[in-house]
């Protein structure tokens, strides 16, 4: 065995180093005026637990967090916390829990009066008056700023966690704040605040590993502005139609933005195909590596976040992909069969339940643009609850060459029929072939 002998000198040097270190740290760390504990005790009375209760069994089915945004008892939370009530207002009621000074729990009813399904926000009306509330942040934040997220993780009681602000995400259609923090389920709907108690966002999601997301406070501000307009309250009867309206307004916005400029294209062999059409799309490429008598390479682009409507019911996806297939060894008959296998089934499908969607209806035909000929299949399905909202799947295979072809898919979820057509037309026009 090896024994290390420390000289008295080295030990004393070591301690001196540690002491010096402590001193330096203390010297250069700015004084923390608001401790985590302080923030928590100061603001916890502005928070509440939101519960969705099944009226038949009288037991809670969903829990989340919420917070007061004015002194008239108005509560803000996530849409996804109260989505069950939106779809079945007579089956599920909304309650919120407050603790009084003696720390006894008190349960009160709350009423949904407005929501923003796109940004996952909801406003609840209560009978309470003179409620302490959180103010909305107006200052701009810097990366690395300390943020406090408050909520009720896993129904364990109100908790606070600290995180750091990491700016806005640019990979999703609707901007979110990226927070390095351990936000988790149950904290949804709770606020993330600065040390001075101003809301910078609403806790919404976690990607695990200290990656959390917030709905930026601006969207909450917009919803509150909408709420301030007289007669803007919506009733149970209007919940589902309101979702349609918001989805349609949202897709009109982003589709018209994409359609306003010419489609960027990319070269795939002798073909030009639509490239990244918006900066919130994530694109990647891949090639078939198996030993096959043909070569296939794929490029695809998709949105990262979809819009949550209810459990197992999401929408808002954009996805498109192109597969370039070529073969030197195969005869025309075999090659057309390979192309058929790609054309037969889109590489990505939207999920959905019978409860929410109809089956797809399709139209298939040969089409041509200036330089290309395709077999095209255009399919739509309807949303059983939502009027004028559709899912679209477009699949096309090029028929210009005998041994080379392009197969493409375009998937748009939660779109109007008109926009599905406009987008598809422009998408197909963007393809070209140079012999």
């Amino acid at each position, binding site marked *: 065995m090896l024994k290390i002998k420390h000289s008295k000198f080295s030990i004393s040097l070591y301690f001196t180093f540690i002491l010096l270190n402590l001193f330096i740290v203390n010297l250069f760390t700015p004084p923390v005026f608001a401790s985590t504990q302080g923030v928590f005790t100061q603001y916890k009375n502005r928070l509440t637990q939101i519960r969705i209760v099944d009226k038949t069994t009288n037991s809670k089915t969903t829990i989340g967090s919420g917070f007061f945004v004015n002194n008239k008892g108005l509560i803000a939370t996530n849409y996804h916390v109260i989505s069950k009530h939106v*779809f*079945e*207002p*007579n*089956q599920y009621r909304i309650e919120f829990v407050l603790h009084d000074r003696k720390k006894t729990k008190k349960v009160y009813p709350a009423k949904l009066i407005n929501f923003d399904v796109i940004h996952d926000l909801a406003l609840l009306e209560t009978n309470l008056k003179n409620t302490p509330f959180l103010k909305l942040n107006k200052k701009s934040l810097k990366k690395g700023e300390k943020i406090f997220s408050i909520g009720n993780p896993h129904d364990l009681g109100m908790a606070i966690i600290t995180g750091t602000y990491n700016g806005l995400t640019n990979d999703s259609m609707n901007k979110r704040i990226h927070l390095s923090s351990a936000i988790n389920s149950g904290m949804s709907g709770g606020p993330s605040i600065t040390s001075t108690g101003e809301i910078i966002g609403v806790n919404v999601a976690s990607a695990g590993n200290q990656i959390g997301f917030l709905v930026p406070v601006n969207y909450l501000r917009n919803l509150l502005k909408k709420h301030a307009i007289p007669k803007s309250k919506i009733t*149970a*009867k209007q919940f*589902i*139609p309101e979702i349609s309206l918001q989805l349609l307004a949202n897709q009109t916005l982003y589709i018209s933005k994409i359609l306003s400029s010419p489609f960027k294209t990319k070269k795939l062999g002798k073909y030009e195909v639509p490239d990244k059409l918006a900066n919130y799309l994530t694109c990647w490429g891949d090639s078939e590596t198996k*030993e*096959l*008598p*043909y070569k296939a390479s794929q490029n695809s682009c998709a949105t990262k976040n979809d819009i949550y409507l209810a459990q197992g019911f999401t929408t808002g996806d954009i996805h498109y992909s192109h597969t370039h297939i070529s073969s030197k060894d195969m005869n*025309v*008959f*075999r090659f*057309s069969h*390979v*192309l*058929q296998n790609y*054309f037969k*089934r*889109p590489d990505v499908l939207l*999920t959905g339940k019978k409860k929410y*969607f*109809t*089956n*797809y*209806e*399709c*139209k*298939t*035909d*040969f*089409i*041509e643009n200036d330089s290309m*000929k*395709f*077999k*095209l*299949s*255009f*399919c*739509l*399905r*309807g949303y*059983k609850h*939502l*009027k004028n909202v*559709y899912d679209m799947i477009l*699949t096309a*295979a090029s*028929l210009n*060459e*005998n041994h080379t072809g392009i197969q493409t898919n375009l998937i748009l979820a939660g779109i109007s*029929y008109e926009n599905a*057509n406009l987008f598809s*037309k422009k998408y*197909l*026009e963007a393809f070209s072939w140079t012999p």
Partner: protein
Amino acid sequence: MDALIIEVLDRFGKVKTRHRVESFPCKIGRDFSNNIILDDTYISPNHITIEQSENSFLLQDNESMNGVYNVHPFKKLDSLAIENNSRIRIGHTDIRFNFTDHNVKETLKDRDVPSQLAMLVSNVFVLPIVWFIFCAAFMIDSFIEETGLITFQKLLSETLPLLIFIIIWALIWATISKVVTHRFYFIFHAIWVSCLTIASTILDNFSKYFEFSFSISGSAYIISLISSIVITSLLFYGHLHYSTTLTAIKSKYISITTSIVIIGMIEIFSLLNATEFSNTPRYSSVIKPPMFILAPASTIDDFFAGTTNIKDNIDEELQNTTSSLINKAINN
């Protein structure tokens, strides 16, 4: 009344032999001296005698070992004044008496053997040639549809099970032929099923090319539905005709009904499956080489102008659903 018809019945009560007796007394027994000899070891050598009196026939037991019994009602007899349809049992044999003559049915015509087809079939080279064509057709088919790497063994391993199935199928029908018509006819059954399977593959491919070339969605389905009914009918007709004694018209009716029932059932199941909810769209996905395109391609604008139907179809389907779903949620 000058003649008596004596019917010897089998154990199912069906007539085995009929004897017309005109001279009496008539002796029945196992001995060769009898007028009607019955080979039943429970019957005495001289079991019964039938005598004719003026207007009747009288049956007499000749003191046989096991006696004579009336069948309905069952009782022992010493003698019996025979009536029309009297039925007696001696030993293990039932005998029925008939006074009247009956018209017999028309004689069935046996098949013309050897026919031209039979001549063809009897040629030893025909079956190997048909099977060679069969294997070639199926190997070409799986060669075109195989998108991965191909070896001869792989193709053969896909074709051989089919050939084995066809041999078993032909053997089953040949056995039926043997049992019913006493002729084996294996070669005919084998050629028949092989040729029709080849025909069905050709028609199946034709329907796909038709659908692709003319861009008519669902045409492949209709063509293959009709052709499969025709081919299955032909298949059954051929097999039935050569393995049973049914008349041509009966065989036709049976084979057409059977094939419609079988294919109808398959179609009903697949139709039920097709109306099930699915996240996968169903569309005409046939793609053949570009040179087979015969239908004109439409412009992108024209194509999308025509998509309003599918929107209308969906809207029509949902016309009542949406509002009722919302109302249901609220007035639950």
